[in-house]
């Protein structure tokens, strides 16, 4: 008995956390056993096992792979471009007061406004193909990266910069030796936020005016009352977000173990 007790005490957070999720899934699964749902409700209802079955089916007939490929392409290309653009601009804004003052109004305005508002315009400009999705992913992901890089550069210790300067380093060497290593934890934190925004961009971008992709799969399944397919899509997005954010978070805590996370944010 004491062994069981100790086992529980050692793993209490995991047991309670996983137990709660399992419990919720079991309750969800058993709802149809307890109530007979009215016809209208039954149309909208699905259970975890049905979702699992339709996941298997979609996986086997290759449909999932096709949609996943399109979404992943938009995600990777959009996020890649936003890293290529966000990091340099963030660095420059952090190092140059002039550039900071000139660009700040736009960064503030764009960052505060949900980027999805530009979607109708982007569809008009780039069509309903993959480019409008790539651009909306980029627009979502670039600002967290840019702003975090900027904050990281701003928080660099002045003394260190001065030391390197007085030993004769030029601006490039200051960047390489002091600024970049010091702002790396911030950049990684920005990457984590950017991943969340990028996935949001993929989802919403594919809802409207698309003919492929996981977002499209969700939207079209919802309008055909295929609720289980909707949940397959939602579960995939959920799993991907979790895996990617956890991976980046692991990296983050290795790089900046001295900077404990106070509040969760995604």
């Amino acid at each position: 008995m004491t062994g069981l007790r100790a086992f529980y005490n050692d793993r209490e957070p995991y047991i309670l956390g996983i137990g709660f999720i399992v419990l919720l899934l079991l309750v969800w699964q058993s709802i149809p056993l307890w109530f007979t749902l009215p016809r209208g409700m039954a149309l909208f209802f699905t259970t975890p096992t049905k979702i699992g079955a339709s996941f298997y089916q979609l996986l086997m007939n290759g449909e999932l792979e096709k949609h996943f490929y399109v979404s992943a392409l938009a995600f990777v290309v959009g996020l890649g471009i936003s890293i290529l653009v966000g990091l340099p601009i963030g660095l420059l804004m952090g190092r140059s007061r002039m550039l900071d003052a000139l660009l700040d109004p736009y960064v503030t305005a764009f960052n505060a406004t949900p980027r999805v508002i530009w979607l109708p315009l982007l569809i008009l400009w780039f069509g309903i193909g993959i480019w409008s999705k790539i651009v909306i992913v980029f627009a979502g992901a670039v600002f967290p990266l840019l702003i975090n890089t900027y904050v990281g550069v701003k928080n660099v210790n002045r003394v260190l910069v001065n030391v390197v300067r007085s030993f004769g380093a030029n601006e490039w060497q200051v960047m390489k030796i002091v600024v970049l290593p010091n702002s790396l934890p911030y950049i990684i934190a920005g990457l984590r936020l950017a991943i969340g925004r990028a996935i949001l961009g993929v989802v919403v971008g594919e809802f409207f005016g698309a003919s492929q992709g996981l977002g499209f799969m969700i939207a079209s399944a919802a309008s055909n009352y295929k609720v289980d397919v909707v949940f397959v899509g939602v579960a995939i997005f959920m799993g991907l977000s979790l895996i990617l954010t956890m991976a980046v978070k692991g990296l983050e805590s290795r790089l900046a173990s001295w900077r404990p996370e106070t509040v969760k944010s995604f």
Partner: protein
Amino acid sequence: MKISDYYAAHQRGVLGFLSLIFLLAGWEILLTYVVPLDPFFFTKPSLIAAAFAEQIAGQKLWHDLAVSSRAFIWGFSLALVAGIPLGAVMGWRRRVEYTLDPFLTALYASPLVALAPLLIVFLGVGLLGKAVLVFLLSVFPFIFNTAAGVKSVDSLLINVIRSFGGKERDLYLKVILPSTVPYIVAGTRLAIGRGLVGIIVGEFFAASEGIGFAIQNYGDTYRLPDMFVGIIILSVIAVLLTEILRKLETTLAPWRSGEEVR
């Protein structure tokens, strides 16, 4: 001399303002004199200003804004009312946190906006569907920020209150609340951003009124100046709300300012 003094004091603001003016002027000049304007794909500031004046004078814009803000306020207030107590319990009781944290974190990290089509099909295109979407997106920052705030309470302060014979009420009002409020304000700022995504996506979907619908409808009918008016109004609202809360954050907790990433 006076001008240079003013410039020195307000350099950031002046430069920002100038860069905005130059961008607008450059945009206008480029499309008036250099490149012929294709009104189906692009527009210029003077046309947007005209559309702006027209919309301000008309009824439709105000109606759309009222419709959207009603759904937003419903969803957002529900998120506040539900999120803060739940977060407080999570921060205060260790076992509750262990139980709920993985589940809620999974929901927070995942793009719940993917549920939008389903919610609209379930709940209709009116107020309810949009309000629920706003609620789902904006409740998590409230929960997690309140929890973090309650957990951040210095246990030394609690002991001080206790040893000086303070009552339970003093504990809540004098220690826990003051150290939690800055976190909640920060959470409110995040929640506003997420809530706005909810309202826009909800209205893009299948609404017949509201500012998100208006923007999409103008896009579909190639009325670009009108569309930009909607985008600009929404940006102004978002910037105002965010900046007010940021100010509030630095007033309430000046020691935390600049610490957190945006």
